């Protein structure tokens, strides 16, 4: 079980897209179990990122800013200590 050799690594992303990509990398490249990855607002506010992305960014009438752009999206992952180096290679993931 060795739960205690587990560390939590966190990273903040300015768009939902980037956060999703980091989650995919963690699961597909590093083999991290999806239930060990948490996605949440980096602040106390509900947010979809700190800048528009995806459909909002490429909107026909220009970028939309009416989404909940109230802060970054935080991805945190509980991993075994020996996975730290591999996970930190994923853009922006750092231990805390």
């Amino acid at each position, binding site marked *: *079980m060795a739960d205690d050799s587990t560390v939590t690594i966190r990273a903040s992303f300015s768009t939902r897209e980037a956060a999703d990509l980091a989650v995919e990398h963690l699961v597909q490249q590093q083999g991290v179990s999806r239930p060990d990855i948490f996605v*949440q607002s980096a602040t106390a506010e509900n947010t979809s990122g700190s800048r528009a992305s995806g459909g909002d960014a490429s909107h026909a009438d220009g970028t939309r800013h009416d989404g909940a752009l109230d802060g970054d999206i935080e991805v*945190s992952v509980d991993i075994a200590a020996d996975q730290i180096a591999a996970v930190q290679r994923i853009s922006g993931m750092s231990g805390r």
Partner: protein
Amino acid sequence: METVAQLGRCHSMSDEQTTENLEAAPGETVSFPFDRMTVEQFRTRFPRARWSDTRKAWFVPGKTAARRVGRWLAELEAEADAFADAKGRDAFEFDPIESCYLALGKGGFLIRTPYSRTVIDELREIPYSRWDRDQKIWHVPYRSYQELRSHWPAIEEAARRNEPEERRRRAEARKGSEEEAKSKRRSAERKRRRYPLASDDLPPLDRVVGIQYGLVIFTEITGELVDPEAMAEFYRGVTEDHVWGLWRKPRLDELVRTWPAKVAHAEGAEWWQPTIEELRPIRRAARRGEDRKLRNNGAP
């Protein structure tokens, strides 16, 4: 430390000139805690390694560098583990834990207790502890002795409390008492999978929320009014404005999709968005449940 500093300086001169080359050259960057012995071992093993002041790390050139460095780091770790185990073993001999639940094994302590949630939680707090499903025993390496020692009183007490005879004795004492009747009523109420909700503060349906029973998903708000007097025994703060909501336990995929709240809920809240601390153990339990289901269904 002096040697380390000197080594670092020696290489810093050439480092400035070769930084760009390092970026392009095949090889592996490695950093480790600085102590003289480790640096000497490293220098012997990797004579072509260079110190990079900009990276504050060593650079080992070569296409197979990553593999060789990985092997060396693993050896280093194994050596450190052996030393820590010997230290833990000495500590145990000097100040042993004497208990019928603990035995000595080849690589560490073997712990077998009656089932207890407290024992499991306490043992999970101990670094490198491991549950052996086949032997139904906990393994704790010698290196974790200090942590085991500090958790042992709670483990021992919980184990004794959960001995079959002790449980039987408590059950006998409870029989026919008001406490037992109350507990049965509470259990029956919970099994009805309903929950009183303030009609002006209803939770979203089909989302994971926390209530007094843990994390649940509300599937329906029936609109039926709650009888505050009859329900006062089970729920606090129920008024005539409360209606019944029906709930079910969330599945693993639903727990995974849930975004945790950044801040804990207010005191006395009837329902709330769970925090990461609430979600983590529930997700793990749900995953264990899914794994168990797969195993029982004959999956590899």
